[in-house]
C-alpha cells in the first residue's frame, strides 16, 4: 500500500501513514493541537492550516467547501476530519 508522511508542526511530529488515512485519525493519536467537534464535517471546529503539500490531500467536498466558507477559512485551510492524506504534507492548527 502506498505510504505518505504527514507532519504536525505544532507537536513537531511526523507520521508515516497508509495513503487514504483521514488526518483526524492520526492527529488524535499523537495528540496534535487540532480540536474536534462533530467529526463529520459540519461544525468547522477542526479547521487546520496546510503549510505544505496542499495538493497531496483529497479534494474538499461541496459540504466541506461550504463549511470552510462559513468559517472564514483562509486559502490553505481544510477540515481535519474530512481531508485524506494522499502524499506528503505538513499541517498545523488553524
Amino acid at each position, binding site marked *: 500500500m502506498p505510504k505518505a*508522511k504527514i*507532519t504536525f508542526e505544532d*507537536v*513537531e*511530529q*511526523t*507520521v*508515516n*501513514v*497508509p495513503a487514504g*488515512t483521514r488526518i483526524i485519525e*492520526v492527529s*488524535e*493519536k*499523537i*495528540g*496534535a*493541537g487540532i*480540536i474536534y*467537534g462533530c467529526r463529520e464535517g*459540519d*461544525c*468547522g*471546529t477542526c479547521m487546520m492550516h496546510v503549510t505544505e503539500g496542499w495538493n497531496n490531500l483529497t479534494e474538499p467536498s461541496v459540504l466541506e467547501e461550504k*463549511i470552510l466558507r*462559513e*468559517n*472564514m477559512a483562509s486559502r490553505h485551510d481544510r477540515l481535519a476530519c474530512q481531508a485524506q492524506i494522499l502524499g506528503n504534507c505538513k499541517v498545523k492548527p488553524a
Partner: protein
Amino acid sequence: MPLDVEARPATEGVDVSRHRESVEIATGVHWIGALDPTLRTFDIILRTANGTTYNAYAIRGSQGVAIVDTVKIEFSSEFFARLETVARYDEIRAIVLNHLEPDHTGALPELMRRAPQARLYVSTRATSMLKALLKPKEEERRFVYTTVGTGDEISLGERTLRFLHTPFLHWPDTQCTYLVEQQVLFSGDVFGCHYCDSRLFNDRVGEFRFSFDYYYAHIMRPFKQHVMDALKLIEPLSIKMVAPAHGPILRDRPRRYITHYRELSTSSLAGAICNKEKTLIIFYMSSYGNTARMAEAVCAGAEERGGVRVSLYDLEGGEIEPFVDLIEEADALAFGSPTINGDAVKPVWDLLSSLAVVNLKGKIGAAFGSYGWSGEAVRMIEDRMRGLKMRIPISGLRVKLIPTDEELEACRDFGCRLSDALSGGKNEPAVIDFADLA
C-alpha cells in the same frame, strides 16, 4: 469627541433586586441582566454558594441600539422588562453574542421575534453553532447575521463596538466586544464569576475573590494557552471598565483582574524547574510492594539518561488536587497499578477522572504494574490516557507477582525508553509509523 465614562447616574446604592429597570453603568451603556440567586450548580461542573447573574447590556448610539448578550431562558421576562426601560424594540440594530451558550442566548429567539430588523453579530467560529441553536425551519431560514473577527467594528454613531476574536474561552466561538470611545470591555464569560449580588459593581458587592478564582479554575483553566492569546489582544487596550457576562461589573481598577488572569495562566512552577529539562511524574499504588518496586526501577531508569526531571509519588499518600497541578505542568506521566479484581485500583481512576480542568493533549503517558493472573490494569490505564488525548509511545509493562532482578532490569529499561521518548521527539521530528500508534 471622547465620551464620559465616569458618569454613573444610577450607581449610588444600586440594588437591582428591588426593581426591573436598567442600570446605566456608563453614559449610554445599560445593564439589562437578571439575577439568579438560588442557583447552586452550574453546567454540572461548577458550584456556587450564592447563585449567579446573567449580565446583558444595551448600548445606545445616535444610530440605534446594540444589545450585548441575553440571559438564560427562564429569566427572559426580567431581561425584557429591563430592556424596555431603555429602548424600543424597533431601535435595536445589533445583537452581539459573545458566545452562544444557552445561559446567554436563552432569550435570543424571543428577542429576534420582537426586534426582527436587528442583525446578529457572532464570531467567525459561531456559524454552525448558531444554526444548531436556533434550528431555523426551512421557511424561516432568513435570519441575518454577520460573522466578525478581531478589529471588525460596528458604529452606532458616536459609539463604536470593536470585536476581539478570543476563541475557546471557554467555547470555540467566544469573542469579546470593546466599546471604543468609553473603553468598556464586554468580555463574556472571561473575567466573569458565579456570584450574585444586586449591588452589581465590584467596589460595592461582597467578597467575591474566591468565586472569581474558582470560576477561572473550572472554566478557563483547561484553555490557558488560549487565555494567553486573548490577553495579547486585551492587554494593550485602555480599559475603564470590564463588563462580564456573570458576576460583578469590574469598574474599580479593572486592570487588576486582567493581570490576575495572566498570573493564573502562567505556570507557577516554571521558574523552579530548569526550562530545558523535561519532567516525568510516576504515580503508583501497591498493596504488597510489587508495583512499588517496579516504580522505583522505572524511576531509576528514567533518571539514568539525564535531561529528564523525574518525580515518584505514592498515590496512597496524596490528595487529588495538588496532583492535578503537578500533572498540568508535567511533560510525561507514568501510572503503576496492580490489577485488583480485573481492574486498576481506584486512586488511579480517581486521579485520571479529575483531569478535565487541565490540558493533557500531547503529553506522553505510560503504564505498568504487577498482577496475579489476568493483569488488565495496564491496558485499561493506557486506554484511558489515549482517551484523554495523551500519546503512549512505549507500550505498557506488566510483571507477574513479585518482580525478579531480570524483570526489574526490564522496568529500568522501560524508564530509559520513556526518558528517551521524552527528550527526543522535539527539535528533530522523528518519524513514527501509523501502525505503532494504536
